[in-house]
C-alpha cells in the first residue's frame, strides 16, 4: 500500500472502529455496525473485561476506558474527521493500549515502563539521544514504506505481537508511528495518560480529557481549571513543593483558549450556514455544490506530515520558520499575528541556545552568575514555549478565519494545510531540541527524575500538534461558506 493511500484510509477506517468499541462496551450493547473491523477489536475487549476481581481503583480506570469511545465518535461528528493525521489513528490504538495498561493498574512509573517495554518503545532518554541516529535511519528508509516499518524493528515487532488486533492500523501508519520520537510517544500517549494522571500531578493535564464529549476549548479549559485547582492545593498545603509547569494554564495565559473559543464560534456558525444553504438547493445545483465542497473537504483530510523532514534541517534561530510562515501566509493580511508567532519561535530557539551552551559562558568568567541549568528549568521553559507557540498558532488560525470571512478572499485549503504542517514540524523540532537539552542538563539525574520530564515534554508536544491540527479542521466550514458566498456573488454579476 502506498503512503498516500494509507493516510487517506485512516479516517474512515478508524472512526467506525472506535464506535464499535463504544457500542460494545455500553451496557445495552448495540450491534456493531461494521463487522469486519469489530472482529479486529475483539481480543482487546476480552482483555479489558477479563479481570473480574478488580480493585476499586482499577474499576474506576476501566470504566473510564469504557467511557472513551462514545466521546470519540461524537467528536468526529462535530469536526468531521477533526482528528487529523495523528489524532484519528492515535485514538483507537491508544484506547486499546490504555485498556491493556488499565488492567495492570499500577503506579505511574510502572505504567509508563510497562507501556514502554511492552510496546517496545525506547525510554524517553534514549529517544532524545537517538534523534541523530533516527535521522539517518529515516533517510535510508524513506524510499520504502515496508523497509521503514522493518526499520522500527523491535518496536513494531513487539507492538504487533501484543496488539495483533491492530496490525492493520499499525501497518497503515507504521512508518510514521514507529520511527519518529513523537509518534512513538503518541503510541502510549493520550489515552494512557487517563490512567497515569490518576497518580501523578505533573501529568495530570490535558491528557485523557480529550475523550470528553466536548469542544476542544472546553477540554482545554477543564484541563486548565484542574491545574488551577491543583496549584491552589499546592499553595495551601505545601509551599516548598516544586513549581510544576502547567501547560493548560500557560496556554490560557497566552489567550490560546479565548482564540480557540472564538474560532469555534466562527466555525460552528459557518457550518450551520453551509447546512442551511444546502437545504435550499436541489437538483444539479445541489450536486454541483456538494462536489465543490467535497473538494474542499479533501484538502483537509489529505494533510501530510513527515517527521523525517523535521530532523533534517536544524533551524537554529527560527528564521527558517519565519520564512516558511510568511510564505504560507502571503496575501492573507495577518502579518502582525504571524510576527507574534515568529517572535515566540525565535525566543524559544534563543532559550535553547542559552541552555545548551552555558559552559562557554561560564568559562568567560561568569561562573558565579551563570549556574548550571536545572532540569526543572529546562522542563518549565519547554512547556512554556510549547504552550505559547500553540496559543499563537491558534490565534493565527483564528485571525485567518476572520480574514477569510471578512474579505471573502479565495483562500486555498492547501495553503492552510501547509501552514499546519509547518507549525507541527516546529513543535516537533522544538520538543526534540528541548529534550536534548533536558538530557544534557540531567546527565547526573536519576532516570526516574529525568524520564517523566522528558516524557512530559514529548506528550505536551504531541498534544500541541493535535490542538493545532484540530484548529486547522475548524477552518473547513469557514472555507466552505466563503466559497459559497463567492460563487453566489459571481453568479449575481
Amino acid at each position: 500500500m502506498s503512503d498516500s493511500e494509507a493516510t487517506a484510509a485512516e479516517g474512515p477506517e478508524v472512526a467506525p472502529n472506535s464506535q464499535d468499541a463504544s457500542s460494545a462496551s455500553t451496557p445495552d450493547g448495540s450491534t456493531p455496525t461494521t463487522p469486519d473491523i469489530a472482529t479486529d477489536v475483539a481480543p482487546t475487549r476480552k482483555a479489558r473485561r477479563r479481570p473480574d476481581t478488580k480493585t476499586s481503583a482499577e474499576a474506576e480506570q476501566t470504566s473510564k476506558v469504557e467511557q472513551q469511545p462514545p466521546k470519540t465518535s461524537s467528536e468526529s461528528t462535530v469536526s468531521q474527521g477533526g482528528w487529523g493525521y495523528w489524532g484519528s489513528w492515535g485514538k483507537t490504538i491508544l484506547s486499546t493500549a490504555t485498556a491493556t495498561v488499565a488492567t495492570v493498574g499500577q503506579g505511574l512509573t510502572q505504567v509508563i515502563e510497562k507501556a514502554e517495554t511492552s510496546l517496545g518503545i525506547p525510554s524517553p532518554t534514549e529517544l532524545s539521544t537517538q534523534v541523530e541516529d533516527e535521522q539517518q535511519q529515516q533517510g535510508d528508509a524513506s524510499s520504502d514504506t515496508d523497509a521503514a516499518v522493518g526499520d522500527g524493528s523491535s518496536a513494531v515487532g513487539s507492538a504487533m505481537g501484543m496488539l495483533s488486533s491492530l496490525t492493520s492500523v499499525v501497518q497503515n501508519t507504521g512508518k510514521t508511528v514507529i520511527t519518529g520520537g513523537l509518534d512513538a510517544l503518541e503510541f502510549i500517549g493520550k489515552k494512557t495518560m487517563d490512567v497515569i494522571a490518576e497518580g501523578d500531578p505533573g501529568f495530570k493535564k490535558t491528557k485523557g480529557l480529550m475523550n470528553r464529549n466536548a469542544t476542544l476549548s472546553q477540554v482545554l479549559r477543564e484541563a486548565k481549571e484542574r491545574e488551577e485547582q491543583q496549584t491552589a492545593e499546592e499553595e495551601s498545603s505545601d509551599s516548598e513543593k516544586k513549581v510544576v509547569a502547567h501547560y493548560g494554564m500557560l496556554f490560557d495565559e497566552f489567550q490560546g483558549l479565548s482564540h480557540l473559543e472564538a474560532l469555534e464560534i466562527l466555525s460552528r456558525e459557518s457550518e450551520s450556514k453551509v447546512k442551511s444553504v444546502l437545504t435550499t438547493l436541489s437538483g444539479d445545483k445541489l450536486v454541483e455544490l456538494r462536489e465543490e465542497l467535497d473538494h474542499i473537504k479533501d484538502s483537509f483530510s489529505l494533510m501530510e506530515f513527515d517527521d523525517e523532514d523535521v530532523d533534517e534541517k536544524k533551524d537554529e534561530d527560527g528564521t527558517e520558520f519565519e520564512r516558511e510562515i510568511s510564505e504560507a501566509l502571503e496575501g492573507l493580511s495577518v502579518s502582525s499575528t504571524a510576527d507574534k508567532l515568529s517572535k515566540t519561535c525565535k525566543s524559544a530557539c534563543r532559550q535553547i541556545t542559552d541552555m545548551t551552551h552555558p559552559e562557554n559562558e561560564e568559562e568567560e568568567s561568569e561562573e558565579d552568575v551563570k549556574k548550571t541549568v536545572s532540569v526543572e528549568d529546562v522542563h518549565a521553559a519547554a512547556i512554556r514555549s510549547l504552550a505559547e507557540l500553540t496559543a499563537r498558532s491558534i490565534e493565527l488560525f483564528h485571525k485567518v478565519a476572520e480574514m477569510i470571512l471578512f474579505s471573502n478572499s479565495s483562500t486555498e485549503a492547501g495553503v492552510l494545510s501547509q501552514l499546519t504542517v509547518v507549525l507541527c514540524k516546529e513543535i516537533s523540532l522544538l520538543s526534540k531540541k528541548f529534550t536534548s537539552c533536558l538530557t544534557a542538563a540531567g546527565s547526573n539525574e536519576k532516570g526516574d527524575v529525568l524520564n517523566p520530564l522528558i516524557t512530559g515534554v514529548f506528550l505536551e508536544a504531541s498534544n500541541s500538534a493535535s490542538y493545532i491540527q484540530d484548529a486547522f479542521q475548524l477552518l473547513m466550514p469557514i472555507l466552505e461558506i466563503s466559497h459559497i458566498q463567492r460563487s453566489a456573488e459571481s453568479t449575481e454579476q
Partner: protein
Amino acid sequence: MAYAYLFKYIIIGDTGVGKSCLLLQFTDKRFQPVHDLTIGVEFGARMITIDGKQIKLQIWDTAGQESFRSITRSYYRGAAGALLVYDITRRDTFNHLTTWLEDARQHSNSNMVIMLIGNKSDLESRREVKKEEGEAFAREHGLIFMETSAKTASNVEEAFINTAKEIYEKIQEGVFDINNEANGIKIGPQHPTTNSTLPGSQGGQQAGGGCC
C-alpha cells in the same frame, strides 16, 4: 490563580472610540495613543475582587468597523457584561448607540449587564456630547453609565468593576443561572476544603473509593 467566577465581557461601539485603549488601560495600566485597528476580536483578562471573592474578567474587545459587524456579532453570545462605548468628542458615535444596543440585545442573552461609557473625558475642550445626554440615554434604556478616560485612567477601573458588581448582584439575586454557560458566567475551580487527601476532582465525586 484560582477564581470564584469568570465573567465574559464584550466591548462594543464605533471604531476609534477607544475600546482597545480602555482594555489596555484596564489590563496593563498603560495608554497607547496609536493603536492598530482591531481585526475581529482581541482579548484581555484580569482578576478583580468583589465582596472578598476573586473574579476573573475575560474581555472580548471587538472591532468597531462596520464591515466587521457580521463577524463580531457572533461573539456577543455568551457574554455576561457589555461595555458600550462612544466618544464624547464625536456626536456620530453617540448617535449610533441605538443601533449598537439593538444589535447587542438581539444577539446576546437578555440578562446581560450593559455599561454605557462616554470615553475621552480628558478632551473636555472638544466635547460634543454632554454628560447629561449620556445619563439620559442610559436611564432610558436601563444601562449603567460612566464617563471615562483611557488616557488618564479616570474611571476605567470603576467601569469594569461596577459592571462586575452588577453581574455579581444579579447572581446573588438568582437572576443569572450560573450553571448555564450561555450566560457568560463560569464557576471557578473549587477550593479543596474537605477531602484534600484525594488528588484531583475524580476522587471528590466518588469519595470513599479506597484508593490508597
